[in-house]
């Protein structure tokens, strides 16, 4: 069974640039999560979906971050006008019950 896949694996931007992260969850998993993990910290939930519906996006900086999962399968997280403080690894996870399965993450550096 294929795991959660993410792309790209790395991204380097100048402040003010935009970037998109893509996630392909495990087939059949109805719940998809996006986390931000700053260096040397634990993952922090940004947003999660059940099928195509947003369940909780309260931690998503809505002025610059957006996330969609239009068909209830793949998902895209986008940052408009990135800031240095956005430097982190962005993790995608999927689940069908209690256990969350994580992808390898996208390591973002904003210069």
């Amino acid at each position, binding site marked *: 069974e294929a795991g959660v896949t993410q792309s790209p694996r790395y991204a380097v931007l100048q402040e003010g640039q935009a970037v998109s992260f893509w996630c392909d969850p495990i087939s059949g998993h*109805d719940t998809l999560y996006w986390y931000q993990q700053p260096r040397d910290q*634990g993952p922090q939930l940004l947003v999660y979906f059940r099928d195509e519906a947003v369940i909780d996006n309260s931690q998503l900086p809505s002025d610059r971050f957006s996330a969609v999962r239009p068909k209830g399968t793949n998902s895209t997280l986008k940052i408009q006008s990135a800031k240095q403080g956005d430097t982190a690894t962005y993790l995608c996870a999927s689940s069908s019950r209690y256990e*969350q399965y994580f992808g*390898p993450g996208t390591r973002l550096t904003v210069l």
Partner: protein
Amino acid sequence: SQWGEENLQALSIQEGEDVTMNCSYKTYTTVVHWYRQDSGRGPALIILIRSNEREKRSGRLRATLDTSSQSSSLSITAAQCEDTAVYFCATDENNNAGAKLTFGGGTRLTVRP
């Protein structure tokens, strides 16, 4: 203890030693997840303990949960070099839409040969 700490704590031990990592949480939870994260990879669940279990074992791993003190621990017996990783506890705000995890700051464990 890793809860409430935003940054990683660090532990270094010799191969063959036992080690315990502690986690204190602030909000009510019905389950504590323990995840392991290897360098360059996403976290992976290693053990999950529910509120009706005081102890859970998996191989050389042992997790405990004390809901009265809102704390959990993860012990590794006879640690090996391959146990070197970052370990996180996470509490679960379970609701009808699925598990919503809140992670602690983590413990970076180094096992020296």
